[in-house]
């Protein structure tokens, strides 16, 4: 099936990816782990979507589910349409034609994501040979060009080097070169800078943005760092407990956060602009158990603004009044009177320092 998908026309402009009610469950002996539990969104060609969440929010599982890179004990349901084509029911053999060619992925830790025993050149050439059928020579030349594209000096020499001979940032560049090799239309970047130093992080994010613009490629940037997504995405999806809890264009989200979770997260991060010893807001407790998620809103047990209804009823995704592209899942969103009333109390407490160390 995949052949027509990669036909000359490539993927048209417009919607590249449509995800509908996607669920990914893992069978474990503790029970079913609902790692992704009903996520829907769509992504335009050439756009960058940031997926933000804490560990265990399902953000990584989401990207791998779409990509189809899941272990055998995963059960997927729902729909993933890539360029109009349903790809969720494809098996690994069929997906191989899409992997690397249509979608590719950059992983978190460049130190362990390259094969330590294979020369850089060969690793870059591999997808070229698999998908484009290039011979060794052509593949090597293309690989060298790709390395130059990701601003690696002395590209030719690098082809014959092994990963351990490169620094972390260089390796991540190589990873990007590999991901770009066959000109995919969708790139998953799964925490691409978490393992890197802050100065290098900036370089890599810049590189991904540059490649995206040059190739008119869509990017799904998975991260826990709100700062990272703020500057490098068009849209942001916030995940919590396997659910999408808020999604909006980047500017809109930061301007009009609706989800108390997003808001709390934002407030718990120390910011450079704040003076020293600024009291941080804390989110008590820990993320939900995905085997036995709480009833109602999954954030409710940790939510300072939660009321009875939140513990009883699961809030649906609703569109915000500020923008048609802004959706959130909350009964008492930021800006609602219930929220504002409680928020005043909380801010009071924080400044007076009553709340010590966020009990459970």
């Amino acid at each position, binding site marked *: 099936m995949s052949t027509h998908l990669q036909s000359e026309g490539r993927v048209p402009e417009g919607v590249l990816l449509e995800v509908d009610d996607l669920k990914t469950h*893992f069978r*474990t*002996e*503790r029970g079913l*782990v609902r*790692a992704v539990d009903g996520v829907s969104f769509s992504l335009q060609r050439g756009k960058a979507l940031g997926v933000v969440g*804490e*560990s*265990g929010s399902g953000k*990584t*599982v989401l990207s*791998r589910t779409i990509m189809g*890179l899941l*272990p*055998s*004990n*995963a059960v997927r349901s729902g729909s993933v349409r890539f360029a109009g084509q349903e790809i969720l029911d494809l098996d690994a053999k069929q997906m191989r034609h899409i992997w690397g060619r249509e979608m590719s992925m950059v992983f*978190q830790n460049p130190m362990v994501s390259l094969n330590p025993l294979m020369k850089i050149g060969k690793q870059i050439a591999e997808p070229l040979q698999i998908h484009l059928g290039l011979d060794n020579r052509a593949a090597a030349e293309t690989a060298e060009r790709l390395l130059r594209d990701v601003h690696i000096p002395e590209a030719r020499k690098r082809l014959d080097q092994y990963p351990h001979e490169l620094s972390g940032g260089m390796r991540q560049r190589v990873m990007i070169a590999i991901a770009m090799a066959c000109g995919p239309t969708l790139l998953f970047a799964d925490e691409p800078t*978490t*393992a890197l130093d802050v100065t290098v992080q900036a370089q890599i994010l810049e590189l991904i943005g540059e490649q995206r613009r040059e190739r008119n490629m869509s990017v799904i940037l998975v991260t*826990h760092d709100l700062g990272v997504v703020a500057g490098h995405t068009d849209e942001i999806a916030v995940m919590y407990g396997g659910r999408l809890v808020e999604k909006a264009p980047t500017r809109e989200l930061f301007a009009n956060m609706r989800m108390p979770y997003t808001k709390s997260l934002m407030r718990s991060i120390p910011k450079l602009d704040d003076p020293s010893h600024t009291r941080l807001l804390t989110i008590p407790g*820990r*993320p939900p*158990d*995905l*085997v*036995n998620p709480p009833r109602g809103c999954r954030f409710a047990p940790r939510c300072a603004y939660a009321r009875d209804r939140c513990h009883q009823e699961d809030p649906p995704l609703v569109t915000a009044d500020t923008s048609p592209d802004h959706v959130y899942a909350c009964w008492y969103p930021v800006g609602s009177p219930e929220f504002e009333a409680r928020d005043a109390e909380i801010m009071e407490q924080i400044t007076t320092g009553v709340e010590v160390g966020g009990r459970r």
Partner: protein
Amino acid sequence: MSDLPESPALLAADVILEDAPSESMASRRTLGIGFWIAVGWIVLIVLAALLAPYLGLKDPDENYINRDLGRPPYPPSGEFWFGSDQDARDVFSRTIYGARVSLVVGFAAMGCGMLFGGTLGMLAGFLRGWFDRVISFVFLVLLSFPALVLAILITSLLDRNLRTVAGTLGFLSIAPVGRLARATTIQYSEREFVLAARTLGAKNGRLMIRELLPNVVIPMGALALLGVAVAIVAEGALAFLGLSVEQELSWGKLILLGSGTNILQDAPWVSMGPIFVLFLTVLALNFAGDRVREYFDVRENML
């Protein structure tokens, strides 16, 4: 910085996320029925060996010639559960009696190895420096002899009684046990909790006994079970070469006695009985050891 999973369920999810399917969680989280069957067998065989004289077994040395059955060896039957050997002796009771030497040697050797090897290994791993270098080299030297060759060498130079055979095998287990103890100690002594205890003022002795020992003991315990199996097999091999405890039955000796081409051809049961029991015992020990190791490994990973 990596996100740290905070709940077991998340951990499960993270483990699962890693591409290749991992060991089934069910079989790793609990010791499992298999473990208890294995332990049951070990207990059974130990009890049988201990109580052999009171079990109403046939005399292992008596020739129970039964003219009705023709010329021995007799095949397994109600009278001879495992059959008899060429000399009309009951293979079953001989196997049970043979367990005594095999088990004593197995457990004593391992105990000796644990005591000396474990202590030396822990000291070396903890103190490092020249002591470590010397001990490591000694271990290396001992390990570069094939163990059986060394065992033969020692047993041949000494009298071959129960004490020397067990002692020899115990001596041989010092190096492997010690190496593991050392490696585990090093691994743990680099953990921050040891640093923390040290900065809190704990002295070396306390660090070793309170902080390291409980952590080292667990992998060592798993190793000990495997080691008992190895020692039993080693005794068997010595006995098979005619170099184990003289004048007493052990499994290796019984197998040796049934291993001649002729007897193997005519009466395979003479060797198969003891082979079977030895096999089950070694299997049980290996299995139990492996389970224990896996069980604690998982808990380790959960930290």
